[in-house]
């Protein structure tokens, strides 16, 4: 049975976590939290799990997502409090390994928009705002963006640059986009398709954008559906299926 795109995304996002990483997540981040749970509970990656709950967690035995990603009841195995401010400072020193950010729009230069659709002063939609992304995007070693694979999201040029991709690309800082269809890497030569979800068609994937040109990599991998163990690890952290309400399919 093919996996749901939401679970494929979670698997894709989680696969970037390495042993020894310092990984931080923000608010409104059920998908990244589940990616971290996948990396921890299924891949058994040994990393520092930190986020807006300010709980400093390593090797948690269990985890559970709630409607807020800042819910301190999510993880119980933490050692003490390390403030978010402290995590920001670690990032400012260039020592944060990995973060996940969402995007309402993302463009060919890896610019992220989480601020407004339309004009800043007269927005058609006032979005929630970028939170830490403007600040951290130029600083964190590896960043994986998650978004819907949708013409409204994958654009040629964002309406507003909440966070600028320029320095990341110039400095060859790993910057990837995991949609609910594919994995795309931002490079000096533009966005490159690295992998698609099992069962999807490459041409479908690269044509369903709103102007973002996605080049084909020398090789386009396939992200395979989840095994029952993989799915079980994710479900253990989201027994109520909140992830499916986030509209990634």
């Amino acid at each position, binding site marked *: 049975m093919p996996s749901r795109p939401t679970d494929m995304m979670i698997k894709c996002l989680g696969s970037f976590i390495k042993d020894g990483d310092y990984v931080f997540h923000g*608010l*409104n981040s*059920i998908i990244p939290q589940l990616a971290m749970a996948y990396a921890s509970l299924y891949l058994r990656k040994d990393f520092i799990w930190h986020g*807006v*709950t*300010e*709980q400093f967690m390593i090797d948690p035995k269990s985890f559970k997502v*709630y*409607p*807020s*990603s*800042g*819910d*301190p*009841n999510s993880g119980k195995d933490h050692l003490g*409090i390390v*403030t*978010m*401010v402290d995590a*920001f400072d670690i*990032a*400012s020193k260039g020592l944060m390994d990995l973060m996940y950010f969402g995007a309402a729009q993302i463009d060919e230069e890896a610019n992220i928009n*989480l*601020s407004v659709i339309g004009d*800043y002063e*007269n*927005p*058609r*939609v*006032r*979005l*929630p*705002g*970028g*939170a*830490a*992304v*403007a*600040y*951290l*995007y*130029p*600083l964190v070693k590896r960043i994986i963006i998650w978004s819907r694979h949708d013409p409204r999201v994958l654009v040629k040029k964002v309406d*507003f*640059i*909440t*966070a*600028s*991709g*320029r*320095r990341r690309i110039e400095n060859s800082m790993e910057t990837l986009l995991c949609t609910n269809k594919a994995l795309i890497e931002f490079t000096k030569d533009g966005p490159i398709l690295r992998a698609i979800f099992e069962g999807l068609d490459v041409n479908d994937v690269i044509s369903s954008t709103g102007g973002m040109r996605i080049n084909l990599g020398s090789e386009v991998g396939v992200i395979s559906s989840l095994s029952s163990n993989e799915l079980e690890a994710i479900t253990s952290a989201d027994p109520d299926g*909140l992830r499916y*309400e*986030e509209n990634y399919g």
Partner: protein
Amino acid sequence: MPPDKLMNLSDAIDIINNDDEITISGITFFRNPISFLTAIIKSGKKRLSFIDREPGFGLDMLVAAKLLKRVRAAMATFEHFGLSPSVRKGVEKHEVEYLEDTCGAVVAGLRAGAQGIPFMPVRGILGSDLVRIHEKKGTWKVINDPFTGEEIIAVKAIEPDVAIIHLHMADRYGNAVILGPRYEDELKIKAAKKVILTVEKLVNEEDLRKRNLELLSANSYRVEAVVSSPNGAWPTGMYPYYRPQYKAIKEYYYYAKNGNALEWIETNLYKRWS
């Protein structure tokens, strides 16, 4: 002992003046000073400005009640439930001015305010369109590091008129302890011109002395008012005392989306605290 600062909600409200800039404790659905914000709404205070990093429920209530002329925040969200309903509508209808900020810069500004210095350098951010917006507002400025010449952003000190902080315990003088996540609340306490604490547990000196190897989150010198307010964060959560009431928050979300936030507030909050 220093002056007793214990007061009830309605007296503490008088510390806030119309046109003040306020900040509140917590994030989206945690440790918001809801009992106090409810009292502000009842009081009819006007034209307040609001500054915070990642507000949610508390901010939306104030926008719904049309008390705010201006919001400055890095993110205003109802997370899994959706966009902050009243904030979104208020901004799109130009009922409230919105200055988007970013976490590191809000923290930098609060740090400058807390440290008594006029500005704070902060890395990152460069390249964002937010720079242009903030330079126009006079809140940020791109400067050169005096030692290397490197470009960096200077954030002007943030010193809100009043910080309203809901926390776990304090004595009647304002010596207080936060348990668990701090967010940037201790910075807000230090940066604000006046501090109002609403507390789950009013404790005496002996209770505090038992914890006397720990850092105080607030001390009496900085605090203007202490209000006893058990369950004062409801429906937001107060870890480890009580969880957020997601059912109530979701209900509010739909009321607010339909323009009925105040009805929900009146029904569910007005009589909750006296």
